[in-house]
Each structure stands twice: as structure tokens, then as C-alpha cells.
């Protein structure tokens, strides 16, 4: 149905983004194809490989749900928007609302090395979240994101967000980390993803390389982050200019590492 309507249909999950289309100056006349009544898309299941999350699982359910949801995803879901929005907004919507520049779940999913599964008339396709968010604009209408798979985590993870006020608005920057410690307590492997700074969330590769082998010390990590801001081309928008988004990033790294250092050892 979505394919047949050829760009005039919009797939609707929690609807919190699409219902504001007219406020943003976007088209308000597109046909809604609601997924709300497909029961499987509301389900979350744990298996040996990790966690399978249906596209219609809400932020609220992720934040309060299964213990197997990694900490970065819990924190991203629990602090996004406001309580009423979190009860409606979904993980699939967060991934598919491509004009939304400040999603919280997307950087968390990139840091956690998650994949998405798309289903269309041509079959099924599974790809990494970062690849999906970079190619979604060019994809033909008709593929529906059904499931998110978060691999079983062996290390710890965290999410942090910078807001101009304490709550209830989009972050000017956010960041997620997933990391494993070496036996001597230094950082072994890690993935860091940054959102809201550029148009699409992405990994911070140079910082990942620089932090490998470093001690798990928040202020030290923030200092290293300051040397790797050139990797970004930050966006100017009404909430904050690009330079400001970069300015807050080392502080977010400091929060992430402090949070990780305070978490109990996995399996402890």
C-alpha cells in the first residue's frame, strides 16, 4: 500500500512526529498507514544473541521494561522529550523520522552496534543502524522497519544529553558510549556515537581510537575529546549554533565516562 501511494503515504508508528508536520511547515495531506494494530511490532524478546525490539515499542516501555535493555538505551529512552511523549513515541519512529535532527535512541543504538530489519515486497533486509540512518532518505517507499536487534552486551554503556533547560526539549547534543575494560582497568574496546551535532547521528571514530588503552578517568577523557572535535561539521539551528554544540561535547564525554566508572562491573 505504501509503495502504491508512491511518496504520498507516510508510515505511522506513535505519530508524535508526523502529527506536527503542519507546524513544521511540512505537508499535512499525506495518507497515514498506521502500524498500530500489528501486535508483533509491540513486542520485545530476549534471546541468546541479545534483544529483539519491535518497532512500535515506546520510549516508556524501553525505559521501564526488561532488565536486558542496555543502560545506554534505558537512559536515552527515559530522558527523551517528556513523559506523555515517551508513552506514545516509538523506537521505530525515532529511527525513521529522518528530518528529526536530535533523536536520543539513534546514537544509543549506534553505540550498542544494533541492527534494523526492514521488510518490503522484495523481501527482508538487515543492516547496521548507522548504515540505515545514512541511506534512509534514498530508500524507495514501501520498506517498513519492523525490528531492532541489540546484540548482547559484554561491557557497560551510557547515554548523556545537553539541554538548554533541564528537561522537555531537544538536546543540542547527545552522546552514547558502549565500552569494555581491559584486565588492568583501562579502556579496551569502545564505540561512541554523537547525535544532534550534525544532521544525522554517527560514530566519533577519532575519539574511539584515542581512548583505547586510556584509563577510565572522566576528566582525562574529556581532555582527549577536546582534541578531536574537528571530526564534526556542526549544524546551526534555532536552538543553538554549531560551535556551541561542539563546545558541550567534551562535557558529555566526561559525563559518559563518569557514569560508566560508577556502574557496577558487568556480572558482578
Amino acid at each position, binding site marked *: 500500500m505504501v509503495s502504491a501511494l508512491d511518496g504520498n503515504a507516510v508510515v505511522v508508528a506513535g*505519530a*508524535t512526529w508526523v502529527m506536527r508536520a503542519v*507546524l513544521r511547515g511540512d505537508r499535512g495531506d499525506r495518507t*497515514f498507514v498506521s502500524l498500530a494494530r500489528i501486535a508483533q511490532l509491540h513486542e520485545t524478546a530476549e534471546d541468546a544473541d541479545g534483544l529483539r525490539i519491535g518497532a512500535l515499542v515506546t520510549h516508556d516501555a524501553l525505559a521501564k521494561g526488561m532488565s536486558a535493555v542496555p543502560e545506554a538505551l534505558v537512559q536515552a529512552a527515559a530522558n527523551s522529550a*517528556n513523559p*506523555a*511523549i515517551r508513552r*506514545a513515541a516509538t523506537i521505530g519512529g525515532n529511527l525513521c523520522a529522518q528530518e528529526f535532527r536530535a533523536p536520543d535512541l539513534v546514537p544509543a543504538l549506534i553505540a550498542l552496534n544494533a541492527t534494523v530489519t526492514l521488510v518490503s515486497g522484495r523481501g527482508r533486509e538487515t543492516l547496521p543502524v548507522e548504515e540505515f540512518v545514512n541511506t534512509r532518505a534514498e530508500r524507495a517507499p514501501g520498506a517498513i522497519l519492523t525490528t531492532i536487534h541489540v546484540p548482547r552486551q559484554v561491557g557497560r554503556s551510557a547515554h548523556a544529553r545537553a539541554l538548554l533547560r533541564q528537561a*522537555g526539549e531537544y538536546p543540542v547534543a547527545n552522546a552514547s558510549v558502549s565500552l569494555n575494560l581491559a584486565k588492568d582497568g583501562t579502556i579496551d574496546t569502545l564505540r561512541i556515537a554523537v547525535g544532534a551535532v550534525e544532521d544525522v547521528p554517527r560514530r566519533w571514530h577519532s575519539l574511539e581510537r584515542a581512548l583505547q588503552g586510556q584509563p577510565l578517568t572522566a576528566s582525562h577523557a574529556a581532555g582527549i575529546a577536546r582534541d578531536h572535535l574537528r571530526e564534526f561539521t556542526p549544524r546551526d539551528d534555532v536552538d543553538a549554533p554549531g560551535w556551541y554544540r561542539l563546545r558541550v561535547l567534551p562535557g558529555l564525554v566526561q559525563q559518559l565516562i563518569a557514569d560508566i566508572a560508577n556502574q557496577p562491573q558487568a556480572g558482578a
Partner: protein
Amino acid sequence: MAVTFTLNGKPRSFRGDPRTSLLDALRHDFRLTGAKDVCGEGFCGACTVQIEGAPKASCLLPVGALDGAEITTIEGIGDIETLNPVQQAFIDFDVVQCGM
């Protein structure tokens, strides 16, 4: 397409555009004006209703996705003889809701 749901304990149906926000349907079709149309983007909370007992922003809910839902508005949480404790507190403490 008719959408059928329970509104303040009574069965109701809506036959308009299913993309209509629940807030607009409540105010324009069901004449329930207790939920207010203020920010229109789920931020201010003035349009809050309960869906299956959970508070949600009615301005962002398309009616078409609410088939079979149980909806409670501010008009449905008490009556003039037996006010909800929150309603009674509004009277007791001269509460004013500015509405942004």
C-alpha cells in the same frame, strides 16, 4: 471508516478524517472542551487525556489509531457531586491554570 472507542465510559464513534487529532475530535465533534488546545506539539500538557489509564498528549494522537481504546478526559474523572480529589484541590486552593 468509523473509529469506535469508549469515551468517559460510553461507547462513541468518529466518522471524520482518521488523521484528525484526538484533541480536535474531542473539542469539535464531542464538545468536550476540558482538554485545551495550546502548544499543539505535546509540550505544554494542556491537552492531556488518559488512554487506557495512561496520560498522553491528545494533540499528537490521530483518532484512527484509537479504535477500541478507552479514553478518559478531564470531564470523565468526576462529576459535580463527587469531584476527583485533584478537582477539589483546585477549588480549595484557588488554582489557576495559565495555559502557557
